[in-house]
């Protein structure tokens, strides 16, 4: 995904990226960084353990408050951010997760896309967060490649032609990703 965004002039000019990982621990691996300068850190995934999705959303909200620049009368702010949430399980901290959902919604993301990868991923909790939930049933590398291609296309969508009728239309997902609902 990074490689393809780095070859896209629109993304290179405008996109900033931040990664938050969550398992037992919640970490912001990279603060919001321009695509051109983004160094992908090593992401280590534990074999088992809890999935603290709620805590991740909590960190997300504080990071958004801190790092996304708001408009002032003197200076233009950042565009509304996009949120892509990926999980292969279900929130272990379901109470916190549920209480964070309204908080996330208050942050005015332009779009929230949740992706459930692998057979253990549950889509129901994700549907509380957004109506754009995708499940990748066969989570192999090709599928992920296609998904990330779609994600990067979605990031670049602001620069594509706009339809004669209003509404931001995301490109259709690749074939192997099914929309649940």
């Amino acid at each position, binding site marked *: 995904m990074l490689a393809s965004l*780095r*070859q896209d*002039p*629109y993304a*290179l*000019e405008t996109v900033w990226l931040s990664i938050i990982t969550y398992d037992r621990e919640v970490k912001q691996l990279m603060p919001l960084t321009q695509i*051109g300068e983004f160094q992908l850190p090593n992401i280590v995934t534990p074999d088992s353990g809890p999935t603290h999705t709620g805590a991740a959303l909590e960190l997300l909200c504080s990071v958004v408050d801190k790092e996304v620049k*708001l*408009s*002032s*009368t*003197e*200076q*233009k*702010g*950042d*565009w*509304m951010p996009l949120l892509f949430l990926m999980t292969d399980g279900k929130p272990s901290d379901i109470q916190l997760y549920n209480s964070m959902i309204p908080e996330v919604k208050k942050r005015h993301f332009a779009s929230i896309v949740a992706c459930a990868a692998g057979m253990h991923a549950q889509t129901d909790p994700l549907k509380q967060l957004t109506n754009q939930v995708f499940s990748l049933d066969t989570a192999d590398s090709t599928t992920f490649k296609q998904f990330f291609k779609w994600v990067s296309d979605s990031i670049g969508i*602001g*620069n*594509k*032609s*706009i*339809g*004669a*009728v*209003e509404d931001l239309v995301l*490109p*259709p997902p690749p074939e192997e990703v099914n929309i649940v609902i």
Partner: protein
Amino acid sequence: MKDVYFSPDKSYVVGFFREKQDANAKDRLQNITGIYRERIFNQEGGDYWKNLFCWPTKMVEWNGKIGIVCPTYPSHFFFSSGNFKGKEKEGKWFASAKLRNKFLPDSEKGTWLTHYHMCIQIARAVKRLHSAGLAHSDLSYKNVLVDPVLGKAAIIDIDGLVVPGKYPPDVVGTPDFIAPEVLETRSLPLTDPNKKLPSIATDRHALAVLIYMYLLYRHPLRGGKVHDLEPAKDEELTMGAKALFIEHPTDTSNRPKVDQLAPSELPQGDVNKLPYTITGPYLKTLFDKAFIDGLHNPSLRPTANEWEEALIKTTDLMQPCQNPSCPEHWFVFDNKMKPKCPFCGTEFHGVLPILNLYYSPKPGVFKPENYRLMVYDKQTLYMWHVNRFITPNEKTKEEDKKPVGDFHFYNGKWILINRRLNSLYDKDEDKKIEIGQFVELTEGRKILLSTEDGGRLIVVQLVTN
């Protein structure tokens, strides 16, 4: 949205529409690949347009899907080396200061002169569409491939052509290029008579934005003014109802704030350092018409033909920068100020001839025509300088494309050598300059380029710096 497949020999591609095409859309594609295409390509000089358009040649139907066949883009429209090898040269790469300064290899940047050549081709292609009564409807750097190295451009994605009154547009355009009136009325339903949709007038706005961006590497309407604290609303106003030229001479409220720009956006983002007037007097007039008078008044926008002519005339004002490591290599010199490159600050030292061109409305009378030719060493003279009835465009005859003379700084003197002119006269001495002979360019000298109808007279002016 189309899925595109290469032909086995890679000479053409077939793009299948993902969405179902209704009868109206099919009819439009039928016409684009049929009658509209023939009107442009099957005429005298039709071949010229093959380089400027990637025009669909056929409509096909396969497994219930509609597709169009298009020629493959020439190889110079793809990066040949570096990080972006194999990617299309989308115009965006070359229209943004940040991308040029940080990511683009120098070998792909071309010179300022080749950027003018690119713009001439774009203006000419748009002119051709408009004169056929067609509007592109979605001109943007995404739909115009460019090659600044060779100074070439081609318009792609022609399947969205709008025919006023016949085929309504499917798109309102691409952000950065949508005309203010279209954005302003975007929320109105399609049936509302006040809704403004893409047309020839909105193409003219997009063309002006493209030219401004390819020459100055910044957007003419994206300045420092904040219209609304909500980014989406602010964007809508910036490009729509409240759109304001960043270099408006009297309303300075949208000037870019240099301290808010990233270092990679400079110096091009600083309108005080590189104001739009560096593009020369002819383009300045047109930018004023496009972004001041015509921004909210579509009928006042310059036509594609006006852009083409002004761009061509401006290339006659170009001087090579004497600094070999200048980022742009050329600059416009119109004798209003010192011959100094605005990009690297290098001054020209020495004597520069300026040729003021006069035309003859009737025998024996010569009038100025606001047309100048700035001379540099090893520059060439063409028939369109010699005769005012000849213009350099798609209709120029092969014979008229050949240089007819050249200028040199030779033994401390500026001279014009006659290569092909049959009636070149030094009027000061009333002496004919034969082919192979030269005439020296001295202050005030009058040189008649041709005695034929339309032949121009040159009055030489020398500037010393």
